[in-house]
């Protein structure tokens, strides 16, 4: 699959996404007042089934909750913020403080996760747009619960390859782990790579 993007294109794409994910991590850190540790992002081209399996392996094959936004520019795709289901309440507690009773926290869990997703995913997309000097439209965030295939919501799971990037992050003091994922189809990945290439050329030209 390495011929879909060359090494230098893949490197440029990864670097741009790395900066955008860093912006998202900074927002999350500020939101929950905890340090966020990030894994090194790595772009891969996988079948949707393999991407879902990869996500299931990371989440211990348990249900997760996710916030998904579709985005659209000269390229389009999905960006997702994913948490193990059994940890999502801890995250909501971090956001809203410990003063609220458990039943209120549970009632607000979905809305709180949507707002966390809204902030984190837009920080990422916004950084991406600002770096590339383009505008990216995004849908309102949607809440999803389930295993990898449901969360990634592949339209054609048996045929298309997708550009998949998964970053593991951890809130060190609070013991909460989560995942940020980008999914684009191949045509979009090529458009995205072209936009990144133009950006790199502009930077190099000074």
């Amino acid at each position: 699959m390495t011929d879909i993007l060359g090494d230098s294109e893949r490197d440029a794409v990864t670097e741009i996404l790395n900066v955008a994910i860093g912006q998202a991590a900074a927002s999350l850190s500020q939101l929950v007042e905890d340090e966020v540790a990030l894994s090194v992002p790595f772009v891969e081209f996988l079948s949707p089934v393999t991407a879902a399996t990869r996500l299931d392996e990371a989440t211990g094959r348990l249900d997760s909750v996710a916030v998904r936004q579709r985005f659209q520019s000269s390229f389009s795709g999905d960006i997702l913020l994913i948490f193990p289901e059994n940890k999502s309440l801890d995250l909501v507690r971090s956001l809203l403080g410990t003063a609220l009773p458990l039943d209120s926290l549970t009632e607000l869990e979905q809305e709180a996760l949507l707002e966390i997703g809204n902030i984190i995913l837009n920080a990422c997309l916004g950084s991406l747009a600002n770096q590339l000097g383009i505008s990216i439209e995004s849908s309102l965030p949607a809440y999803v619960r389930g295993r990898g295939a449901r969360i990634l919501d592949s339209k054609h799971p048996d045929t298309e390859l997708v550009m998949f990037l998964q970053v593991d992050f951890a809130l060190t003091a609070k013991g909460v782990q989560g995942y940020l994922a980008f999914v684009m189809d191949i045509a979009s990945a090529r458009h995205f790579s072209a936009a990144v290439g133009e950006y790199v050329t502009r930077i190099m030209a000074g």
Partner: protein
Amino acid sequence: MADKMVLVVDDSRVARMMTRAAIAKLHPTWPIIEAASGEEALTAIALDRPDYVLLDVNMPGIGGMETARQLRSRCPAAVISLLTANIQDPVRHQAGEIGVGFMAKPLKDEALAQFLASELNPS
């Protein structure tokens, strides 16, 4: 400083809760009213005249940017700012063109304090 009224417009109840808490920490006696959409905000200003308005952008219905335009002309004295996770440069530029401020989520206490210390527009 006399009490001022703040209108918080956001489709997320949690976002409104967090913004309300941040305002109340700085100005415990100020009245805070909430709207869950741009349409609700435009209805709310028929009953109350907020001095400060904090406005989300990505909302169902007419959305924050169009709401900002209408609020700007219907509440000329109010100090209005977007409060949004959408940190893209064009959103900041549009805010400037409309004549409203821009604040990024998550809301920083210092930015909020500065906004709530802004002088009201002469009416």
